């Protein structure tokens, strides 16, 4: 039995506490972290809390006086952890046509599959959102089929297009905006993952689920323009 309640505590600087769990990331740990985080954020001494795969970073209002105090305080708080995390399941439309998937053929060749098998495997998984990072609106997703693992490109691309759906190492993800990146681009979504003018700026949150839905390029164009006019609604399951 893994002990979810066992964490290591350290101070990153005089106002930042880091909690680390010495176990591999899992949905059980993820749900524990999400619940614990929401309890921590309600504490009046805390400014905010950020999650990683197996860690929580806590920014506190005043200087840390004693780590022992925080360790005991947080351990007590952790025991109140009772809510259930359901998470919303989002269906994200992706066009895997070659004009949107510059690396699909090369990736297929490298992992000895044909392009349609790659797409089928990519579509067959329900991915879990672990946290957001790297870029505003970038979702760290878990659950990629191990047959699709491929180490990142040696030379990152300077401008990965917005909406690119990609595979890098053991992960898959969507580039919310143009950025440099070393992942293999196997498709593109017309859906906007990050809009700073919206509240919240990204629809997905840790604990949610994502699956991809294949669309043709006409549908891509249609969704793109619907989104521009503000009358596109993403499908939930």
């Amino acid at each position: 039995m893994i002990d979810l309640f066992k964490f290591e505590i350290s101070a990153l600087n005089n106002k930042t506490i880091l909690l680390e769990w010495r176990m591999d990331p899992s949905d059980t740990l993820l749900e524990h972290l999400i619940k614990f985080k929401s309890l921590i954020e309600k504490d009046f001494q805390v400014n905010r809390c950020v999650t990683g795969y197996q860690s929580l970073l806590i920014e506190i209002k005043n200087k840390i006086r004693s780590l022992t105090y925080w360790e005991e305080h947080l351990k007590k708080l952790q025991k109140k952890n009772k809510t259930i995390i359901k998470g919303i399941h989002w269906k994200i439309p992706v066009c895997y046509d070659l004009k949107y998937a510059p690396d699909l053929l090369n990736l297929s060749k490298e992992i000895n599959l044909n392009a349609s098998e790659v797409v089928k495997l990519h579509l067959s998984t329900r991915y879990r959102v672990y946290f957001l990072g790297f870029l505003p609106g970038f979702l760290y997703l878990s659950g990629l089929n191990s047959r699709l693992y491929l180490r990142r490109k040696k030379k990152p691309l300077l401008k990965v297009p917005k909406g690119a759906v990609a595979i890098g190492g053991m992960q898959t993800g969507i580039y919310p905006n143009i950025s440099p990146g070393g992942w293999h681009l196997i498709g593109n979504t017309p859906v906007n993952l990050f809009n700073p003018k919206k509240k919240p700026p990204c629809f997905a949150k840790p604990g949610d689920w994502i699956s991809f839905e294949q669309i043709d390029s006409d549908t891509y164009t249609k969704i793109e323009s619907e989104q521009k006019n503000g009358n596109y609604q993403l499908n939930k399951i």
Partner: protein
Amino acid sequence: MIEILQTGIHTSIQDIGRHHFKNFGVPVSGALDQSAYLIANSLLNNSPEAAALECCIKGPKLKFHDDFYICLTGAEMNARLNDEILKNYKPYFVKKEDILSFGIAKTGCRTYLGISGGIKTEKVLGSRSQYKNITSSDKISKNTIIPIGKSNFKPAVGTRVKEQKINYANKKIEVYRGPEFKYLKKEQQKLIEKKIFHISSLNNRMAYQLKEKFIHNLPQIWTSPVIPGTVQCTPNGSIIILMRDSQITGGYPRLLQLTESSIQLISQKTTNSKIRFKILPKII
């Protein structure tokens, strides 16, 4: 209002930062040298959150369209109001049609221009700090107009804080041990403090990369939160000091953590500056 006649090298609107959207992957941003930025606001009796211009290496040329008070802090950048040479850390009255121009930074690298009333561009996600894909641009643009807020500020006679004693040439960068520091071998732990490092040309608001490589045996980590001042070490030994525009999570081992005042000091340094890490005792 203020009109931008020339932009300088990289001049951007910055404030105290965008702290509340980290969970959406949004960087903190804000003035890199928070100390200089906050002093500019306090000398003008502005709120600590009032946005200012951060000028890097060579500042802009500006024309004032109303009367204001302004105050410069941080690096010395040969600022001139029309023909008059301006000193840092002193409020000056500027009139409509006056022109403010900057030269190249003599000491330090970043100068803050505070304006009474503060810059009033649109707030995005709780801050005016410019950052690509959040605000419309990551720096100011030529021939644009920047709105300024209202203020009744009148300086008391002779207001000027004592010249700031911060020596921007100081090599010593104070750090705490980072979460993965303990995995270094003893001799590597000693070496990181002994070695003189140089800042490479890859230095900007996002991160400062150092020229020298640091060979290490640090394990790979699962992506974990990082904050400004976190010192990462890549598998090939590159050392990267994260600054305020950096991403909020990272997958490289975290070797060291700069103190707040060291972040301010390093943000006044640029390509080829020498630094030496000084490890402070454990925080608690």
